[in-house]
């Protein structure tokens, strides 16, 4: 069986996997990071979105062996120092951007990638960007609001750091 090594949430990890093991399975089963969810089998719902080398990808549509040597961030990697939420996580809480919570990790990871590329997205740009993230609970209204607020908070954080 192939061996894979990668950095996940800043930690070096490795494991033996079948070649067919998906990155999502490796994260959930081998690493026991169950915040990354699997909501479909056709690469559409986005519950499994993680960052690989800084870009959001669907971890259910990437082989673990393809992530060999990569730097992976999952939802668990955002609020590393215990209880301090990432501004995007905080924005989702403040704006009731989640209900059942199942799509939420993917939504948050996707939203951060958007803001990394487009620090001040319009509502319409946010809605377009979310094409690959399906939520059945919220009607997206508060997710859009959350991401706009999260983007503002991330801009603020960046400005403060500069």
């Amino acid at each position: 069986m192939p061996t894979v090594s990668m950095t996940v949430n800043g930690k070096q990890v490795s494991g033996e996997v079948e070649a067919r093991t998906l990155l999502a399975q490796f994260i959930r089963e081998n690493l026991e990071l169950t915040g990354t969810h699997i909501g479909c089998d056709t690469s559409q719902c986005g519950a499994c979105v993680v960052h690989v080398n800084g870009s959001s990808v669907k971890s259910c549509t990437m082989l673990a062996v393809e992530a060999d040597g990569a730097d992976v961030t999952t939802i668990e990697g955002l609020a590393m120092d215990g209880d301090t939420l990432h501004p995007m996580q905080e924005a989702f809480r403040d704006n009731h951007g989640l209900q059942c919570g199942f799509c939420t990790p993917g939504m948050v990871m996707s939203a951060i990638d958007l803001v990394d590329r487009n620090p001040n997205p319009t509502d319409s740009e946010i809605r377009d960007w979310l094409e690959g993230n399906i939520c059945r609970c919220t009607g997206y209204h508060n997710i859009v609001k959350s991401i706009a607020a999260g983007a503002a908070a991330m801009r603020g954080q960046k400005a403060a750091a500069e």
Partner: protein
Amino acid sequence: MSATGIGASVKRKEDFRFLTGRGNYTDDINQPGQTYAYILRSSHAHAKIKKIDTADAKSAPGVLAIFTGEDMQVGSLPCGWAVNNKDGSPMNEPPHPPLAQGKVRYVGDQIAVVIAETYAQAKDAAERIVLDLEELPAVTTVDAAIAPGAPLVHDDLAPGNMCYDWEIGDEAETDAAFKGAAHVVSIDVTNNRLVPNAMEPRAAIGDYNKGTGEYTLYTTSQNPHVIRLLMGAFVLQLPEHKLRVVAPDVGGGFGSKIYHYAEEAIVTWASEKVRRPIKWTAERSESFVSDAHGRDHVTHADLALDASGKFLGLKVYTKANLGAYLSTFSTCVPTYLYATLLAGVYTTPKVYANVKSIFTNTVPVDAYRGAGRPEATYLLERLVSKAARELGMDQVEIRRKNFIPADAFPYQTPVALQYDSGDYEATLKKAMELADWNGFAARKAEAAGRGKLRGIGISTYLEACGIAPSAVVGSLGARAGLFESANVRVHPTGSVSIYTGSHSHGQGHETTFAQLVSETLGIPIENVNIDHGDTNRIAFGMGTYGSRSLAVGGEAIMKALGKVVDKASKIAAHLMEASAEDVEFKDGKFTVAGTDKEVDFGTVALTAYVPHNYPHETLEPGLEENAFYDPMNFTYPGGCHICEVEIDPDTGVTKVVNMTAVDDVGRVINPMIVEGQIHGGLAQGIGQALLENCEYDENGQLLSGSFMDYCMPRADNFPGFQATTESTLCAHNSLGVKGCGEVGAIGSPPAVINAVLDALADKGVTDISMPATSHKVWQAIQNAQMPAAAE
């Protein structure tokens, strides 16, 4: 109003774990020694099982066991509601085995379970099971199923594929009302079949404990106690004290996770056979053929009106598709949750409905967000709008003319229900203001300048939820009570644990219920924990569906809190050397009227557990109370939804440009959460109206079997919503609460379709079916412009 009490938009307590990936959903749970199940499902809609050869598959790597229906001889998955035929005879109720016996009846029906060390091994091995099936002709639509000579899904157990032929209302009196009518307006509508698609696929882990003989089932359920009862008593014959059902964090339900499913029984039963825990998790394409679907009605209705547009009578004939087997609550959805709503918000004096529920070779159909009420609302609000157009009346005026007035409550309808409160004029007025109804003509003209067809549609609706009085539903055939239980445990230091039978899978109970406690006991919300979802921790529960959590579960908590306050007041009286009648409790403090004596809730709690100075002769130590609450009536939310669309006539694409909802949900505990619930309902309602459709071919193959073909609404399908509340209080519960979980999905579909038809009216289009896809809209325009071609 306190910052964390009733009426405050408290941020949700549950969000931290969900936002940090620390939720605990069923598939996140792993037990030591866990094995994996793969369910081999039928790829035929209807076939006789001649032989299942598992010998080769059993020798595949990692396989521990394979079971078929022959091996698993257990009870039938039960139906929870008996509906009688018109003539009083009982419905046809064919058995529903967890693993198929003799025949498979839909694509997805369970044939065998393979248990292996890994899921991949189980799935690999399943391909080596050799099936000898004799294909039979299939029926997928209600009309095909009741045609003479149609293939029979259950052979002689359901002649004519009929489950029941049921009626409500007085047919003769309704006919008489039609005799004097100046106008009769008729409509034929189809309520499209939907796939619920909660984002978390269903999963189950069965775990038999060899030492104690106890079974534990972890499952994605909205009501773990109901599963324990149904699976224990009816399917596997396991007593409650040997069976624990845990529904941990659940990723959305929308009705689809109410029912007791075959996979739950299979993994529980098989875990005893293989003596190891067994996990099953659905793949999404499997969810499409194994989660109960929703809706699927075909209806003809006639509305009689007098010359002024006043409704005189309504006759409704509905055929409901139940799928291949009776899912847990399937039978009550097209009857007691549908036809009883046909008076709507109107004073229609005579209503008659006949409902035929029919078996087909499709996935079982059951309640999906709204369950029966969206079907009733869609029919009624389409019909009322059609009547307005045919009579040349204004859409709003025809509704106003027929509204049950605000001073007419309690109001007895001709179809069994007695509404307790409402003010339909108030929600209408507010919605029209918010939607700028009067400014529509200008917006339409502006859109026309851009080549777009703009339309506006309205729906004034009502629903019955907060289900329900046990005695009433029992008299109507329910085989369960519909109360709720609560336990309030005050800890020695004054923090509080609530154990509720309501289950939260997105609704935010951990926050809303905690607000009730914070308000009632005057303690910080951080000091309250809401526990749910485990039959070992929670005394009993009927679970979450029918927008009942607050109106029933919340009331049970209030009742238990009341008992806590009573007992605490007595302890406080003792401490303050006063009479209990003189003790007042407010903002967490007990005081004695006319004195400066005061003792806080925490001191009383501590005293209850360290009872040194305590009225032992009259009170037991401790501070913990139980309550069961069984409501007096349903609750009746209602309101007004207004939708505005723009249609691109070149492509037929319909864009919702404005969606306004003003709902009367009773008292609002947490406005943020209530609005969120309404948003979600609106998205599902608009989804039904414009995007979603579950489609079978004539052979029973599911054509919309994945997100590639079933159109799940996405963010870019919607505008921002204008959703708010305008409430009257429920008259029969202490909080005055009604329910908000389903209103969005109930009121919106007809508003959307009425808007589409309004936009297309100038093109000569008078009818369109849901979902009004771009293809259908384009086709409707073509047909209207070429009448000959439409024939």
